[in-house]
């Protein structure tokens, strides 16, 4: 949990207030200077009214060079970041042809399948030659190839459910499935920090949405009891069905969800559960099967399991795994399946090969090695960051590590200083996180070696001192040395 000290909160609010004031002053001057100029396009309302994009124009643009950095290689452990320059104070950025090789602490490359792999890449190339890079059709009209059916069976077997269905993009999976499962008259109870795709899907479905406190099963129980007793708003008829939506790893917090307790509550009140494992499938658990395996939950207890192939498998697309009947129903009604282009066959082959490597079916134990590596890497990195005095969020074993920054000025400072030292990090601010809680997010990969991690730690420590984000006291080496001396005496 984030503990925001008072002094930091005050300084952050003061910084934002100052930026806001400056932004308003600039807007005022812009209005005054533009007054003599006639309106360029008569009769058309502007695309964005003044205040709607105030945050974007006046705050986000100042730090725009920290986002959207183009790269010129595969997103592996080390990447080539393309340098950019700006002539008009960050309003437009131009590419140069200079490339800097940087340590990649930002991409979601948990198991290291992003670069060319010795088992996956030859098979992908073969499938490309056989099936061509695209199918040009929707799944029901001739876009289903043997690879698609093979992957659906394999994904279902990997996750532990009877059947699965594939989609071309992870975001669309959530936005299109939730409306197919629940409509007006149903209730969706979702975690307060759920991803944007889930929020969009819930809004698009037409059902009533209620939120429970992040990762608090007791509050979930309270909300469930209250809602079942009250029924639908205004008519008080009983709800048609209730779906509770949670995520495996929350990408901005790095926390695992308290799955066993939440499942117990849902079973007691007969609500359906929907688990979004976008970040956790393939990355955690002893054999990579996600948060169910790690926390000891039987997959049959979760009604619908969703995941994406973009993070751990180095490909693209998403899947839903559930019982045979639900999947048959979804294949028949879900619009993303009926109208969306099917997944590209080489991408499907990449996932098939990646899953085979993880399961060990390729004849080697590289999968187990990768899983052990990512677990060791994450735990080591987190422990070291704690020792250095950073405020790191997230649970043990989770490869996502947010480091709190808080102040808006520290966001571009941290990012730029790290880039100067050849480390590429990702910083996140409003609107992806609450306004005062800006953070830098580290994603560890199985392809990082111990030397890479040590280099990363060294740079982070130096930059952390420079920027001033070591909010916790440093666990110094001196106390260990003193204890040793005492023993000797």
């Amino acid at each position: 949990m984030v503990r925001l000290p008072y002094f930091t909160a005050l300084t952050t609010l003061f910084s934002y207030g100052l930026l806001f004031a400056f932004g308003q002053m600039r807007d005022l001057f812009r209005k005054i200077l533009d007054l003599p100029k006639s309106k360029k396009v008569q009769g058309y309302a502007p695309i964005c009214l003044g205040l709607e994009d105030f945050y974007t124009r006046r705050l986000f643009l100042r730090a725009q060079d920290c986002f959207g950095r183009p790269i010129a290689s595969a997103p592996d452990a080390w990447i080539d970041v393309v340098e950019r320059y700006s002539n008009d104070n960050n309003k437009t950025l131009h590419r140069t042809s200079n490339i800097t090789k940087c340590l990649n602490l930002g991409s979601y490359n948990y198991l290291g399948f992003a670069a060319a792999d010795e088992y996956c890449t030859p098979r992908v190339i073969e499938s490309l030659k056989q099936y061509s890079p695209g199918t040009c059709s929707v799944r029901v009209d001739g876009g289903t190839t043997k690879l698609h059916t093979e992957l659906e069976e394999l994904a279902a077997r990997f996750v532990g459910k009877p059947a699965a269905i594939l989609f071309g993009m992870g975001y669309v999976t959530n936005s299109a499935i939730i409306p197919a499962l629940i409509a007006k008259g149903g209730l969706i109870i979702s975690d307060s920090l759920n991803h944007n795709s889930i929020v969009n899907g819930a809004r698009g479905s037409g059902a009533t949405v209620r939120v429970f406190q992040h990762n608090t099963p007791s509050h979930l129980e309270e909300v469930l009891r209250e809602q079942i007793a009250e029924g639908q708003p205004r008519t008080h008829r009983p709800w048609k069905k209730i779906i509770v939506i949670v995520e495996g790893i929350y990408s901005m917090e790095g926390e695992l969800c308290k799955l066993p307790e939440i499942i117990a509550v849902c079973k007691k009140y007969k609500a359906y559960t929907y688990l979004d494992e976008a970040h956790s499938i393939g990355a955690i658990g002893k054999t990579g099967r996600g948060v169910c395996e790690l926390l000891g939950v039987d997959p049959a207890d979760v009604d619908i399991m969703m995941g994406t192939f973009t993070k751990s498998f180095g490909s693209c697309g998403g899947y839903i795994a559930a019982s045979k009947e639900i999947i048959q129903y979804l294949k028949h009604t879900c619009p993303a399946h009926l109208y969306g282009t099917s997944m590209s066959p080489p991408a499907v082959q990449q996932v098939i090969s990646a899953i085979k490597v993880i399961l060990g079916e390729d004849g080697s134990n590289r999968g187990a090695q990768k899983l052990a590596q990512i677990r060791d890497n994450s735990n080591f990195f987190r422990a070291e960051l704690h020792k250095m005095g950073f405020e790191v969020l997230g649970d043990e074993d989770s490869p996502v590590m947010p480091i709190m920054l808080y102040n808006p000025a520290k966001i571009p400072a941290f990012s730029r200083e790290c880039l100067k030292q050849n480390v590429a990090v990702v910083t996140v601010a409003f609107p992806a996180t609450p306004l005062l809680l800006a953070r830098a997010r580290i994603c560890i990969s199985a392809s990082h070696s111990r030397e890479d991690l040590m280099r990363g730690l060294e740079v982070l420590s130096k930059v952390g001192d420079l920027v001033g984000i070591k909010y916790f006291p440093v666990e110094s080496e001196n106390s260990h040395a003193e204890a040793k001396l005492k023993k000797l005496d």
Partner: protein
Amino acid sequence: MAVAVANMTTAALDWVSVKFNAPLAGMVVFGVHIHGHLIVEVLLIAVILFQLSRKSYKPPKKPLTEKEIDDLCDEWAPEPLHPPITEEMLSEPPTLESAAGPHTIIDGKEVVNFASANYLGLIGNEKINDSCIGSLEKYGVGSCGPRGFYGTIDVHLDCEARISKFLGTPDSILYSYGISTIFSVIPAFCKKGDIIVADEGVHWAVQNGLYLSRSTIVYFKHNDMSSLKSTLEKVTRGNRRAEKIRRYIVVEAIYQNSGQIAPLDEIIRLKEKYRFRVVLDESHSFGVLGSSGRGLAEHYGVPVEKIDIITAGMGNALATDGGFCTGSVRVVDHQHLCLHFLLVLQLPLLIIWRRIQLFFQN
């Protein structure tokens, strides 16, 4: 009989008036004469005030007890997540065993493929396959991150530049999935309170985008220009606020559901007369219409600057996956910061970069 009753009532009334107006009943307070009837009126007012000041009767509110909530929870039975499975739902689509080109193999038999939208026949092109293999070895398959966090490969940016150059628009932006292009673009520009005039026959993705935008939507008859004109007239006439709110016309170049082509020159004329912005979805016409494949604008000879926003899914003529949106610099800039174009496929995008090169060569 009646006379007797009348006499009695008058006698009674006389007696009452004598009593009230008798010197005893009258008082003198502060030099003002108070007659007897005033006392009755004062008493009446006092009774009325007393009744008004009392609280009205409301039945007391009793919240549900814990046990009652438990009972309700036990009684409640949800519907199943899916309706009963019918015969129709069990049918499976045909499974291809080779590339989805003009001829394909299903169940061991060679069949002619009329189902794939492979308009330019680019599936199975040798040059493209070779360049894909090269890019696969260099960049891998997926980009492992959103555009904002090291998911932007330099090839994506090159691709965007090529598309703009090809179409003649200032700027463009790529999306990662065909149908999600249009249903991300529409909510990015149209918010609550705006007016959208859309064709009745637009496909599901456009309808979803319109629903998500929460604007006021008015439909006109499918591909009927007189209906469009009358709708525009109705929406703008007498509406003084119409100047301040954003107005859009949403049409498709080739309608997916009916195959008709939208008459662009008429639409542009109407748009300029009534001051609407046009959002054109060119998924099926990019690479198909026009003498060099530049789409509907070339087909009708309309300068492409007149169309405000052009979107297209690349899953049809370009035989890949993803979509793009082009327009003026302001339009594209606005979308950079609406976080909908998240993770991007690399592999197919390199394909289309090559394809557009092919267009130039042709």
